[in-house]
């Protein structure tokens, strides 16, 4: 089936977009985490300026948001979207389990990604740099690969690489101790700094060593927006939007931190609302032809 609106992200922007789209009777799919955003789970001081929830901590705010989702019967699909393809009059979303979902309109609300791509990362994308282990592991059957894990959640994908590949060097960018079921996954506590090669990637350089590999899988909690949506116009590290939260791709909208500063919950929620109404408007106009 093709959804009316796919929403990526479960921070205030994505949730408000989902709520508004649901209230307007659109069929929606909401991708994210039932924990809502990671940021909300770690904010334990009161957030002073969110209207209607005085003194709520991030966790309390998340509980309040979850209650509202329950009231409206909105479900969260806990799958990661790896790529959004603009197909003309609809979108195809590739998920990290290698399945596809189609939607007439898409709202990006996946937050801001700290940092920037590694040197060589963009150059070798598709030539030995991959963002999806499930999708591309078959290409590296019996080969030596590196995997950079942004969070503990990425370990399952890295473990799958261990099943397919001959050897996996795993570089965790977090403190928890990684655990794998395949013993050909070797955990290395070094900081990756550069990807190098010729026609294809050959070497991953860290702050201490170099590793000869056929592919580097970079598994971040969130993608850089230009990699998430090929053809999307970016300004600095934000998606370029207008006041209706429209991007340069018709039918694609962005809201919240991904649309730029200020990084504020109440602003994110407001933009999520605008993005959903713009998407509803877009769908109505399309139907009228």
């Amino acid at each position, binding site marked *: 089936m093709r959804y009316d609106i796919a929403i990526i992200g479960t921070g205030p922007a994505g949730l408000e977009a989902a709520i508004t789209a649901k209230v307007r009777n659109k069929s929606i799919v909401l991708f994210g985490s039932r924990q809502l955003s990671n940021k909300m789970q770690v904010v334990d001081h009161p957030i002073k300026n969110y209207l209607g929830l005085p003194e709520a901590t991030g966790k309390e705010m998340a509980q309040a948001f979850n209650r509202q989702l329950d009231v409206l019967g909105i479900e969260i699909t806990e799958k990661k979207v790896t*790529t959004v*393809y*603009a*197909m*003309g009059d609809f979108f*195809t979303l*590739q998920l990290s389990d290698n399945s596809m979902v189609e939607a007439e309109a898409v709202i990006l609300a996946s937050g801001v990604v700290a940092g920037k791509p590694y040197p060589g990362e963009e150059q070798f994308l*598709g*030539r030995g740099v991959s963002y999806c282990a499930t*999708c591309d592991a*078959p*290409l590296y059957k019996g080969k030596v690969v590196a995997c950079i894990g942004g969070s503990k959640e990425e370990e399952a994908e890295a473990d799958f690489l261990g099943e397919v590949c001959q050897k996996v060097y795993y570089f965790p960018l977090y403190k928890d101790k990684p655990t794998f079921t395949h013993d050909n996954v070797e955990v290395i506590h070094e900081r990756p700094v550069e990807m190098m090669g010729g*026609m*294809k990637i050959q070497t991953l350089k860290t702050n201490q060593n170099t590793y000869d590999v056929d592919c580097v899988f970079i598994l971040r909690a969130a993608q850089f927006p230009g990699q998430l949506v*090929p*053809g999307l116009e970016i300004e600095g590290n934000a998606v370029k939007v207008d006041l209706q939260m429209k991007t340069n*791709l*018709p039918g694609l909208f962005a809201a919240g931190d991904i649309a730029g500063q200020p990084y504020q919950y109440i602003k994110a929620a407001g933009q999520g609302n605008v993005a959903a109404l713009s998407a509803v408007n877009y769908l109505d106009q399309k139907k009228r032809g």
Partner: protein
Amino acid sequence: MVKIIQNNDMSEALTKKYAVIDFSAVWCGPCKMTAPILEKLSDEMSEVAFYNLDVDVNDELAMQFGIQSIPTMVVLKEGKPVAQTVGFRPEPALRSWIEQAVA
């Protein structure tokens, strides 16, 4: 309609005034997404011939064109490459890229 190139034989495409060659592979996600867009554009742009080429079964042509990443699209004008692009592009971007190449 997008024609399939087989057996490393693209002689027909070389005779066309304008041809778009889509270098792809069955296992490549962005290639799968590009295919329906090219199919649609091929119906719209009658003056341009469209071809799909699987790099795994047409390895000689892929080498000859120096294809390092897929999908790669090449526009041929009377058999000579005049434009090349790599990676998935949304439909409007792909359409205007081809229009410019054949202008």
